[in-house]
C-alpha cells in the first residue's frame, strides 16, 4: 500500500507558482503566430479572431473557473463596443481612451448585473443574466445615441496616444495583438493567483470552501466583474477594428456563440477558448458562401464535438498529454 505513491492523472505544477514550461512555449507560439499571421492572412480577419478569442477567454474565466453559466455575456461585449464607438466618434477620444472607457462601462454594468444575479444558481442564474442582457439589448435598440438598427457607423480609428495613425489595418493589427496578448496574460495571472486558487476551491467543492470561512459570493462577484471587464475590452477593440458598433454584438445569439466557442475549445482550460473562437470565426468567414447552411454546419460540428470531445478539443489533448493546458 505504501509503495503506491505514484500519482495518476494530471501532474500539477502549480505548487511552485511559476508558469510551467509548456505554457511558456504555448504563449511564445501564440505570439509567433500573431506576428506571422497578418503576412499570410487578411489582417482584419485575424483581428476579428483575436477579439473573439479574448471574449471567449473572458467568458471562460467565469464559466470554467467558478462554474457560473452567464447567458448574457453579449451585454458587456456589445455595450462596451457602443460606448467605445460613441466616445471615439462623437467626443473624438483617442482609440486607447475610447477602449478604456468602453471597458470601464462594461465593468460597471458587470458589477450591477452581477450583484443582482449572483445569488441565483444554475439555470436560474443563466436565466437572470439572459433577462438583464435582453434589457441591455432593448436599451441599445432604443437609446438615442446608439443609432438604433443602424448602429454607430464610420467610427474613426484615430491616432493611438494622439500620435500614431491607425488607419492602416497593418498598424492597427499590432495594437490589437498587444491588447489580446495582454488580456490573455491577465486572465492567466488571475487563474494562477491566490484569488484563482480560491476560485478553484469554490468550483471543486463550494460548501467546503464556505466551511473554511470563504465568503464565496464575493469571490463569484469579483470574477463576474473581471469577466465582464475583459469581455468589454474585447468588444471595445472590435468596435475600433470594424469602425462599427451594432446590435449584433448585444444580441442574445452572440451570448450563445461565446458559449459555443468555449465548449468546443475546452471549458476550464487556459487555451481552449482561443482555439474555439478561431474555429467558429473561421467557419463563419470561409463557409459564408453556403449562406444559411453555415448554422447547420456549425450545429453538426458542435454535436460531433460534444459526442467525441466532451471536454473540448484542448481538454481532450490535455488529458492525452497529462498536462493542464
Amino acid at each position: 500500500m505504501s509503495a503506491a505513491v505514484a500519482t495518476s492523472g494530471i501532474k500539477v505544477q502549480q505548487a511552485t507558482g511559476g508558469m510551467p514550461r509548456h505554457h511558456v512555449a504555448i504563449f511564445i507560439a501564440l505570439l509567433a503566430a500573431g506576428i506571422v499571421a497578418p503576412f499570410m492572412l487578411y489582417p482584419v480577419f485575424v483581428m476579428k479572431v483575436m477579439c473573439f478569442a479574448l471574449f471567449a477567454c473572458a467568458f471562460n474565466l467565469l464559466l470554467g473557473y467558478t462554474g457560473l453559466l452567464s447567458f448574457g455575456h453579449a451585454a458587456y461585449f456589445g455595450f462596451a463596443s457602443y460606448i467605445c464607438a460613441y466616445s471615439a466618434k462623437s467626443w473624438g477620444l483617442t482609440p486607447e481612451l475610447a477602449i478604456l472607457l468602453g471597458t470601464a462601462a462594461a465593468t460597471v454594468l458587470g458589477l450591477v448585473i452581477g450583484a443582482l444575479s449572483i445569488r441565483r444558481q444554475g439555470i436560474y442564474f443563466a436565466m437572470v443574466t439572459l433577462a438583464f442582457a435582453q434589457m441591455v439589448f432593448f436599451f441599445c435598440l432604443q437609446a438615442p445615441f446608439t443609432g438604433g438598427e443602424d448602429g454607430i457607423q464610420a467610427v474613426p480609428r484615430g491616432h493611438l496616444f494622439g500620435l500614431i495613425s491607425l488607419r492602416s489595418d497593418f498598424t492597427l493589427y499590432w495594437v490589437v495583438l498587444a491588447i489580446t496578448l495582454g488580456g490573455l496574460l491577465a486572465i492567466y495571472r488571475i487563474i494562477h493567483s491566490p484569488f484563482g486558487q480560491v476560485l478553484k476551491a469554490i468550483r471543486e467543492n463550494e460548501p467546503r470552501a464556505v466551511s473554511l470561512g470563504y465568503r464565496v459570493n464575493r469571490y463569484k462577484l469579483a470574477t463576474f466583474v473581471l469577466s465582464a471587464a475583459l469581455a468589454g475590452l474585447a468588444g471595445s477593440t472590435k468596435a475600433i477594428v470594424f469602425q462599427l458598433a451594432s446590435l449584433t454584438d448585444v444580441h442574445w445569439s452572440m451570448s450563445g456563440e461565446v458559449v459555443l466557442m468555449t465548449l468546443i475549445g475546452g471549458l476550464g482550460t487556459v487555451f481552449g477558448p482561443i482555439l474555439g473562437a478561431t474555429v467558429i470565426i473561421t467557419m463563419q468567414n470561409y463557409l459564408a458562401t453556403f449562406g444559411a447552411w453555415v448554422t447547420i454546419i456549425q450545429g453538426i460540428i458542435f454535436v460531433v464535438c460534444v459526442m467525441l470531445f466532451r471536454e473540448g478539443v484542448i481538454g481532450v489533448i490535455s488529458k492525452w498529454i497529462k498536462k493542464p493546458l
Partner: protein
Amino acid sequence: MDDGVILAADNLTKEFRGFLAVEGVNLRVRRGQIHALIGPNGAGKTTCFNLLTKFLPPTRGKITYKGQDITALSPADIARLGLVRSFQISAVFPHLTALENVRIALQRQRGDSFDFWRSQKVLSDFDDRARALLADVGLSEFESTEASDLSYGRKRALEIATTLALDPEMLLLDEPMAGMGNEDVDRIAALIKRISANRTILMVEHNLSVVSSLSDTITVLARGKVLAEGDYATVSKDPRVVEAYIGAGHG
C-alpha cells in the same frame, strides 16, 4: 451563561413545511470535551448540525458561541469565529493536490484573497506548514497526489488536516467514520482523540463503539428531540434510549 460552555443551543427548532425535523433542542457543549450527538436514523442529527453551523437557518431558537449570539451569522462568518465543520461525505477539493488542499485553508490567514494580480508564488510561504499538517495525519508521501486519487480513509485524514489548518477552537464532525473500513476507523479515532487535546469537538456518529470510547458527553436525539444526555454508561442504560434504538411501537 454557565461556566465552561462554549456552544449552546436554546429551543432550537427547524420546521420543513409543517414537519418538525428538530424540535426545541437545548444543547450545552462544554469547552475541551468530545461531545457526541447520536440517535436512530431520521432523528434530526444532521439537521441539528446544519443549524448549528448555519448551513440551514433555524425556524426558532438561539445559538450562542463563546457568549456571542451567532443565530443570525452566515456560515462563512461562523467559520471565521473558529467553529469549523466537516461533512458527511468527505469534503476535499478533488482536483487539487493534497498539499494544495491544506494550503487553501492556510491561505485564510491572509484574510480575503482578492489579489488576482499577484502570482500564486506567494502561497509557497505556506508550504512548510502544510507539509507539517500532512505529516501529522500521516499523508506526507501523498502531498503531490490529487485528492481524488486518495483512498477514502486518506481523504478523511486530508479533510481533518485541512480543518486543522484553520486551527479552530471547536470542530463539528459530521459522521467522521461513515463508510470506513475497520483499520481506518481506528486510525481516525486515534487522530480525533489526539486533536481533541486543546479543542472542543462535537460529532455526529453512528459507530457506537467509537462514541463510547471517545466521548465525554453524549446527547441522544430521537424524532427531533433530546431523549437523554450524559456519559456513555448513563445513556446506554436509559430505557428510553434502548427503546428508541430497538424500535418504538413495540411497547
